[in-house]
Each structure stands twice: as structure tokens, then as C-alpha cells.
């Protein structure tokens, strides 16, 4: 059983979470009219073997969306952080 270390709730079984896809894909900014950008974001996925950063939500815990490092070949999990914290940090660096 995959065990995920939620930064707020501690280590829990993955059955408490839902998966949310590749976290390195950047959602186009709201209102972006570029059809191609949306098409890439919604339909085009890498299927990597090895390290992967992905969204998980702690559905029956704190409800926070997290970004988890997971190796798709071994299922070994690495760092797990709040998606909001990372998004805010990205915003700050943009300013």
C-alpha cells in the first residue's frame, strides 16, 4: 500500500487520497485564448517510467491538494508538499 506523508496530517494510506495527474503540467492562465495550449494541457500526457511529480488530494483528511514525488517504476515515494504553497512560491518568483 502506497503511504503518503501529508504535510498537514502525517503519513496515511493512499486510499485516503485521490489522484490528480501530472503536477509538472502548467495549467494555461485563466482566459488564455490559445486553443493549442489548452489542447496540450488537457489531452497530451507524458507517460514516464521513473520519477514523477503528481497531484494527490487528501480527500478524507485535510482536503488539501498535494504534490507528491513518486517513482512510477518502483512506487517509491519522495517529498510531498502542499500544492498551494508551491503555487504561491511560483507566483512570488514571477513578481
Amino acid at each position: 500500500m502506497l503511504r503518503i506523508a501529508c504535510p498537514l496530517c502525517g503519513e496515511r494510506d493512499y486510499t485516503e487520497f485521490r489522484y490528480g495527474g501530472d503536477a509538472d503540467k502548467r495549467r494555461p492562465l485563466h482566459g488564455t485564448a490559445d486553443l493549442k495550449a489548452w489542447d496540450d494541457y488537457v489531452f497530451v500526457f507524458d507517460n514516464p517510467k521513473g520519477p514523477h511529480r503528481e497531484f494527490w488530494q487528501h480527500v478524507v483528511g485535510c482536503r488539501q491538494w498535494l504534490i507528491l514525488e513518486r517513482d512510477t517504476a518502483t512506487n517509491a515515494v519522495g517529498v510531498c508538499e502542499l500544492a498551494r504553497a508551491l503555487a504561491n512560491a511560483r507566483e512570488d518568483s514571477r513578481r
Partner: protein
Amino acid sequence: MIATPYRLPAGGRLDRDDAIGFSLDGRPMSGFRGDTLASALLANGVMLVGRSFKYHRPRGFLSAGIEEPNGLFTLGEGQCTEPNVAGTVTELVEGLSARRQNGWPSVEFDLMSINWLIAPLLAAGFYYKTFMGPTRGAWMFYEPLIRRAAGLGRGVHQRDPDRYQTRHAFTEVLVIGAGLAGLTAALAAGRAGARVVLVEQDTLLGGGLLLEDAAGPAEDWRRRVEAELQSLPNVDILTRTTALGLYDGGTVALVERRDHLQPDSACGEARQIVTTLRARAIVYATGATERPLIFPNNDRPGVMLAAAVRGYLNRFAVGLAKRAVVTTNNDSAYATAFDLARHGVAVTVVDQRNAVRRELENKAKALKIELRTDATVIDVLGTKRVTGVVLGSTSGEAQLSKSDCDLVCMSGGWSPTVHLTAHGGIKPHYRSDIAAFVPGGYAEGQFGAGALTGSFAVAAAIREGMDAGRTAAARSGHDARASELAPPVLDSTGYGIESICHLPRKRNGKAFVDFQNDVTVKDLTIAHQEGYQSVEHLKRYTTLGMGTDQGKTSNINALVIEAQSRGVDISGATTTTFRPPFTPVSFGALSGRSVGKDFRPTRRSPLHDWHLAHGGELIQAGPWMRAWWYRWAGSTAQSAYIEEMRLVRTGVGLADASTLGKIDVQGPDAAEFLDRIYANNFSKLQIGKARYGVMLADDGTVFDDGTTTRLGETRYFMTTTTAQAGEVMSWIEFLLQTAWTDLKVHVTSITDEWAAMAVAGPRARAALELALPGEDLSDSKLPYMGCLEIKIEGVPLRLIRLSFSGELAFEVYVPADHAVALWEHILSSASPLDIKPYGLEAVASLRIEKGHVAGLELDHRNTLDDLGLGRMASETKAYVGRELRQRPMLHAPQRWSLVGIECLEPGKTLRGGSILFAGTDKIEGHGRGYITSVTWSTELNKFIALGLYQGGLQHAGEDIVCAYPLKAEQVKARIVAPMFIDPKGERLRA
């Protein structure tokens, strides 16, 4: 006392003061506490325990453990029947009822054994070649017959009355297996202070030590270590517990058997318990399994694995023979030969090797054992019991000799029990020095010790156990200084295997590789000749290793034979993939308490009990139990919902809408947020007004709909559909937490906190005025799509004038605790208007008449335009899904889109799921669309439906055919606008 002819007068690890009565095929028998079913049967003189899978050959026990392929029984009676249980792992309990399997009329006299005469027809691939392919139809006819002739025990179609339990647990160190290495590892970790769980599938700790003389020095060691482990409060010992599978994150599934406690399900006692254990470190000390040798008729009752014979002798005090032949390719079988000789059995050792160590030779001589090297068994005599063997030389076809015996003990070497270590995907690798596969590595925090690693010597097992236990404890920060444990004194013979190879014989008689599935050397040869050379193909073509024993005694031998056929070195071979469960597990144990009504969680409306107490019939809708229809309206759903529809169209009804998803949206950017997630505009919504909104997914298809009410400048009350409530909540949390972190908005699910009820019908306002005297509910104060927040006796209510039915209607929201009180208050105060409750069936039917889409139409493939809602989308703002909604194919004129359908044939029924065809179409294939929702219309007195149809309303007025092939029905119907009543909406604005 029932005679037990093969029980020795003394010895063994049995409680001879505790006799246990049991039965085989109804015949009473007797054993002792400490017996397995197998040892007790052998003590009672039962050698023939079953008929083989395909050929119905007589079979006896091969082993004394979980690897047993032959001795499978049906245990219990009636509802408690459990088929295919290995007698070698069944603990003997008072009253146990066992039946032998796969013989007709009986195992002793089996008419099906004539299969033996047509055996040449039943080789690998026979079924497929004969019944599949060009004569495929034949398979449909023959399959049930073949399945009956071949096969194992049969289950029953009755509910299992026993109780099964599941639990979750954590530990710092898990040790799997309690042999020499496992006991030592548990002790080392336990002494260091770590929380330890030691699991052992057997009833006793000791593993291979239990094969030793119960009065010898090894037993002292075993008892001493067990006593120390039991004195440590931080060590949990779980016997009768099997580790079924290893999963990510150090998670292990354990199943504990408790039949020996005779659990009483009426008192809540569980027969089996499955534990999901999360361990910070794992020590595998799973030992090794002995392999058979392969020679013609090696499956006759009385041909057994050498260590098993030793176990029956020393642990269970069963003397199986007067004259035994021990045949081997390694040293380990000598221990069996010596122990048999010490018990007065005349023993011949037939060793395939050219020479044996002097030490063994001397000892054999001292015990008067006849020792033949460069020798091998080339045939077995006897049918229901071994009567002798034919011997030849390993190196050539020298003169044959015959030797009488009533027992053949064989050892083809040992295979480490690598299964659990490989569940995570780490393939075992072959070590030619011990002619066996060992773990190919371990996941982080996991270790191996003892025979599993190929270390068969006593001292090595102790050393590896110590190291593994200490390292495992250190992972949790426990001081793991070396502690001492002297190894037990064992009369160890060593291993000394040279290589394993299959020796072809020019001799008739089947040489079995997989005993349970009746796979012979010849089958493997055929498979090879036909090109099935990969081990995975070989397995599937011959069914080798696919029985309940999962090939524990056969897989490695098959790999050797296959490698030899291909002329390649075995060391390059790979095993098939090991998967959980390690040994068979009952469905009862896996499902635990999640059966029947507890199969999954059930959600209930706060009005649930009221519905039940007042004639409400419930229906499951996703996780919810919802009020379906009420007894006041009729005695069946079909009649009641029509009566309830009539109530809403002509009077007033009350419906429970509490299952709707409800979300509180607050914050300075709430309006901007709603503008982004809804396709239509919400920022311009006035305070105190509600609006119907549609959300799209990123790909431009419709995701969900609902109404959202503006309660204040920065506060909205959102509702979602019942089915999508959880999805919508996760989705908006995703957007707010990962993409729109700059928006100052907070969302909270209040689905469970607020109940909802709909008051609907021409008399709805009058009904509410009776219930809420003094409130002005006039059209000017509370117009269509208006919202009023009021209090009744201090309890807040939200009245929103919404209509799902198409009638004048109000939705009333109230904190869940007060739902029943308000519901009863409305019913009693409005009783002069004949208000009654109506259920989900009527709700869903009323909305079809009105043409409102719901979950059946919103199938995540259709667009706003498909549903006739295209004009709702804002032209002036961005919203989720706007861009991909523009994709040209989503605007193709031939898309399946929403239509209304009217039945043209009175007396006929429209059915949901019917396939739609144009009137001129040939009725075949997928048609031009399908019916999504259907109801009887009380207004139109005919069946009406909503559906998706190619080209949609371009075809309005055209006649179509609704085909329902499952019932061979075709009904003529007409495409109409999807709104059957009050198209101008005058009723809901009344």
C-alpha cells in the same frame, strides 16, 4: 477408541491426553491435539486421499505443508462447506468433517479413472485444439461436461454464516517465518526494544526445527527461544497467520485462522482475521520448500517428499513404512533416512550422485542402511499404494533391479520461498551453486535471512537472523548492540547438491511435474515442440503451476526441463511472476465485514427514518438511500409515482431534496470565482436572487449543473447534482489550490449540514403560507428565482423559489437537525390542502415532462449545444472549458443532441436505453441515438422520453422507431421539442 494403526506408541509433539474425533467421508476417526488433518489421516491408515485433476489417478499426500498439491479436501457441511483445503495445513479440531474430492462414486472406486485409458488424448493443449478453433461451438456444449469430469471440490451457493474480520496495525519490525532464522531475528529486534510482530503460518514456532526429534537438543533450544520471545512485552507472536502479500510502503496482508478456538459467530467471534499491517522494516525468514524428483509414476500414494516423511515421523509420531526407499540428489534426505532407520525401518538410499561424503556413508553403514550411488528410481510399482521401485543407474541404462518397499521418500533439492520478496516486482535470480532461485534483492528496509537466502546451514541461519533483526530494529532507532545466541545442536547433514537436471527415461508411465494439474514431462515436451518456450507461455499452455498450490513444488522442475529442451543454461532462466496471495485465501476473509448492507458505506438523508416510518419505499442511488415512492399513492412503484405526479400537477407535494450537493462560497473574489467556473454569468446576479448555472470541464463538455444563490455581496450558496457533489467539490478545490491561488475565496461543503425539501404544485404558496404564517411569500416579495432568508422559532430557513417539476415551487433549506421538525410542520399545517410527500420516481418523471436534463443526459460527452443550452454560455467573460468548447467537431451538425420523444403506439411502452432509428432505417447496429429517460406523462396520457439523437431537433416532427432488442420490441415514436408541458413557463411564475 478407534484404531490408529500407523501411530507410534510414543514421541511427536502431540497432546496425547486430548483425543480429537473427526470424520472422513462420514467415517469416524481419531487423532490428537497437535495433529493436522493429514497426519491424523495417515495415522488412521488413509493413504489414498484424492483423485488427480485430469486422469483421476489415485493420490496420497506428497508433502506436510502449504505446498501440498494432492491432499485437498472439502471441509464442513452445508453453509459452512469449504472446498479445496489442503489437509496438510488443516489443524485437527473436534468434529472436523472432511470429504475427499474428485472421485465418482467415491475416491476409492472412481469410475472416472477410465480417463486414464484415453490419457493420450488429454495432453497439453487438448481442450483448445479439440474444442476451440474451427469447432468453437462445440466448446459451449462440451465445457460443462469437461469441467465436471476434471476439477476440484465444489463450493455451495449458500451464505457463509461465519464471521470474518479485518483490522489495521502498525509495527516497527515484522518477521515473517519462525524457523531458526526468523526466531533469531525476532529475538535480536525484540531484545533491542523494537516493536516486533512475528508471524508464522504453522500452529507452532520452529519451522524446520519441528522436523527434529521432539526429545532431542533442538527442542530445548526452540522452547528456550520461544519462552524468551513470549517474555518480551514488545514482541507480538501471531501463529496460524500467513503473510499473503507484500505491498508498497512495507504493507503486508496477513490472514489469521482461528478455527481451533471454535469461534461463535453469534457472539461476534471471527473465524479468520485479515490484518493490513504496515511495517517500518521487514525480515523475510520464509525458509525453503523441498522439490520432488521426476520419474515415471512418481505420483503413486506412498511417494512423498523426504522432509515431509521426517516431519510425520518426528512431529506427528506417524510411522509410514516398514521398508523405505529414499531417493535424492542432495545430502538433506539423509536426515530422513537416518531417522527412519533409527525407528527400525529398512532403508535403501538411492543417490543420483556418483559419490557421497564419507561421513554420511559411515553413518548409513552404522544404521544398516543400504546405500546405492549413481542410482535412480526409474519406475514405481503399485497403484493405490507403492509396492516397490525399479532402480537403474544415473549414468547409463545398466541393469535394472527391483526393490520392494511401501514408501518412497524423494528429495530433488530445496527451493527458497522467494514469493513474498518478489511481490514488489524484484525478480529472483538463479544461483547454480545451490541449484535454486534466491531473492533478486530487497526493497529498502527489507532483509532476508536463513534458507530463503540459500543459507541452509544452521550457523549461517542464526548469524543472518541476528544481523537482519538488529538492522531492522536500528531503522526505528533502537540500540542494536550484538546479543548472543548459541545455535542449537542439530544432527545436520548439510546440503551438498550438485546440480539439478532431468534424466530422461525410456520407460512407460507418466512422470509428473505438476501433481495438482496433472502436467507431465511429456506435456512440457509437447509445449516446447509447439513453440511455447517462454515460461509464461509454457505455464498457460500446459496449466503448469496454475492450481491452488501455484506450482510450489513444480515450477522450478519445469524451468529445468524447459531449459534442457532448449539447450540453454538454467541460470539465464526467469521464474513466472509471483503474485499475492501466497497461499489460497477465502473470499470471506478478504471481504471481512463488507458484505450485504455493509458492502459499502450508505448515506442517509436526515429524513431517512421519517420516510421509513411513513410508508416510504427506499431505493439506492449511488451511495444514497432515497425515498423512491410512498405507500399512500399506491402499492407498486409503477402505480404510485403516477399518483404522486398528479398530486404535484394539481395540488401540492413535498419532496426530500437533501441529497443535493451544497457548497458555501465566501470571500471578496467569490463573484469572480463563480464567473470562472460557470459558463454563464454570476457576478451580475443580484443579492437575494438564484440562477441556474452550468459548469464545463476543461475539455468543453458539460460537467455539472445546479442553482447558485447570492446571499450577500461576498457570499453565495451553491448547489450541485447529487451524483457529482464530491467531484465538483474536489474540482473547485483543485482550481483554488493549484491554479487560482490569488483568488480570495473559501469553499465549504455543507451537504450534510443542510437538509432540503421541495414544496411543489399549484398550491405550493398556499401550503407554505399555512406553514409560515406572517411571512409575505407573494410573487412580489419572493418572485421566481428569488431567495428569502427567514427564521422560524429561531431556526434559519432559506426559501428559494426554484422549480424542477415545472410547477410553482419552493425549495426550503434548513439545518439538518431541524429537518424532521420542519417537514412534519409543513405536512401538518398544510394538511387542509391535502399535501402529501412524493418520491424520487415522481421527481424524475416530472422533470422529464418539463424537459430538465439530469444525470442520465449529462453523460460527460455532451456539450451545452447538444443539450440545447448553448445560449447560456457567456460571450463576455472567460470560463472553464471555453476554449476547447470551440473545437469544430463539437459543433458538427450531426452530433447526438437532446430531443423529446413521444410514443405513437398506445398500449406500448417506451424503455430507457432503447436504440433510436429513423423510420426508414433498417433496424440493426447502433442506430442514431438512444433514450436516456422515460416516463408516463399524466398530462399527455402517453409515454414520453428524453433522448440523444443524431442531428437532434433538425428532425423535429419526424417519426422514428425505438428498438429494444433485449425484449425484441419496436415502438413507433416521434421527435418533438424536449419540453412537454407549459413551454412558456407560466406555471412556475404563477
